């Protein structure tokens, strides 16, 4: 059975990745799951300079989902390259970096810093983080800006570039087409939906940042629709995710048009999910007589 996939030039040993921000720098969960067995580990979003992140509370559970407003806490790209990457390289983890910038120039600069770094398989562009006030969200909602960010990054690197699209837009296809236009090698979708919660005892927003990003099973239907739409109109492989917590969910994403899937919130529920889910996929393929995962991709469009 062939589980390898080619995600815009990144060869993955299997089509299940773990999503940025939900799996730290790849080793936090190492007592529970071997990160080198996972299709790809997309590490925590990195910025040019260190960021302390948002004040708490940063997370809150909602029906079949959760809100987060981490605010891109991270030690900056240099620390990432110096301290975290070598350990991941040593373990031969398939690493996709995830970067967020405050300007097109910052994205390009980070891409150039990643260029030539051994152990990085590709770059995911977070142009859709709803928790960062300066920069971030606006990039992901205007097609022309998306095109420019992608093009600027592509100019600095030979690594596959995967913009991660925000679902908080009127026309996801327009954004995806713009990313393709800018030279994207694949698309990652979806990031979190904007949301909030209110503490009725304190009579104020729960999150320190007021607004946060909604993830988890609650958003799965939204993710599937956007992927289904983009698959029809845009000729790029899709890394699909949003609410996957079991292999049935993952199969829905493949059938909607995802070449690979990513697990975010699901890791919190079950840290072994990425590999357990793979077993479920294999079993389904066996029972249904599929020999390659690629046969499943987009099959629901027939």
């Amino acid at each position: 059975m062939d589980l390898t996939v080619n995600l815009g030039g990144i060869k993955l040993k299997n089509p299940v990745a773990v999503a940025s921000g939900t799996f730290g720098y790849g080793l936090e969960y190492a007592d529970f799951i071997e990160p080198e067995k996972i299709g790809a580990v997309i590490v925590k979003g990195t910025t040019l300079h260190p960021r302390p992140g948002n004040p708490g509370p940063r997370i809150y559970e909602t029906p079949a989902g959760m809100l987060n407003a981490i605010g891109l806490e991270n030690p900056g790209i240099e620390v990432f390259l110096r301290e975290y990457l070598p350990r991941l390289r040593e373990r031969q983890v398939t690493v996709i970096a995830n970067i967020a910038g405050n300007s097109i120039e910052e994205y390009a600069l980070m891409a150039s810093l990643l260029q030539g770094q051994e152990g990085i398989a590709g770059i995911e562009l977070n142009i859709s983080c709803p928790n960062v006030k300066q920069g971030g969200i606006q990039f992901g909602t205007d097609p022309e800006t998306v095109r420019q960010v992608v093009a600027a990054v592509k100019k600095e690197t030979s690594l596959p570039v995967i913009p991660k699209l925000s679902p908080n837009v009127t026309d996801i296809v327009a954004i995806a087409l713009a990313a393709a236009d800018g030279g994207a090698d694949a698309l990652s979708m979806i990031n979190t939906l904007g949301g909030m919660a209110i503490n009725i005892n304190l009579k104020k927003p729960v999150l320190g940042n007021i607004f946060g990003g909604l993830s988890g099973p609650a958003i799965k239907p939204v993710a599937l629709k956007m992927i289904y739409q983009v698959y029809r109109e845009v000729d790029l492989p899709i890394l699909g995710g949003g609410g996957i917590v079991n292999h049935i969910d993952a199969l829905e994403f493949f059938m909607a048009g995802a070449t690979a899937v990513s697990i975010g919130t699901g890791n919190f529920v079950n840290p072994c999910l990425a590999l357990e889910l793979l077993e479920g996929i294999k079993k389904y393929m066996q029972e249904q007589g599929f020999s390659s995962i690629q046969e499943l991709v987009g099959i629901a469009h027939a």
Partner: protein
Amino acid sequence: MPSLEKARIISNSKQYHNLYIMEIEAPQTVKECKPGQFLHIRSNPGLDPLLRRPLSLYDVDKEAAKISLLYKVVGKGTALLADMLPGENLDIMGPLGRGFSLPESAKKCLLVGGGVGMAPLLYLARELRRGGSELLVLYGVGNEKELLALERLEAIGSQVQIATIDGSRGLKGPLIPPLFSEILSAEHIEFIYSCGPESMMKLWQEWARINHISGEVSLEEYMACGVGACLGCARKAKPDNEFYVKICQDGPVFRLDELELE
């Protein structure tokens, strides 16, 4: 090394009002347990609630591979836990976090536990006693029926002083230093451990500072991953710090001198 385990529930029963004790058999997990650490528990196989819930190691019996949990039903997750029956499996992940530090040589220790805040202190007391330390435990609750850990504390040979809000047993009033000033003035405390409402711990922090006593407290925060991967359980150890600590990884236990409580 922490692990994921399906632990068999041995017993799970209401002790008083919304307070429960659950005993589980967790041969893998039990080996690694240290006082002050927690288990990250899935309260149901469904999606509501979605996330795991952190519960402290209340008591640990390594020979029998048994872990006890003391929990208060406050919401959906704990309500589902309370519904579980002996023989069912509990999906646990752990032990996680940085626990209490045990003194290298025997000391005279003060343990201050408010309500379910006693949960992480019983196992600590057991280990401290095993190391020969002498213990004075201040145990504060609303009503005497909530003194679930009392018997076990006494059985391991700790001196326990009680405060109840309604005066049903021991001193009457909240678990704050002035209430115990007489008792404390007669003791030579070398280290303090505390867990309970933060406002209460803050008063004991202040007391410790004045009396030049070192100590540790256990903090709480909403958690998602429990292992430092999501950066969700962040708080500033001191308001002026630029960066945040993670309760699940840097704690839940912190040294008093690392913190400014609120």
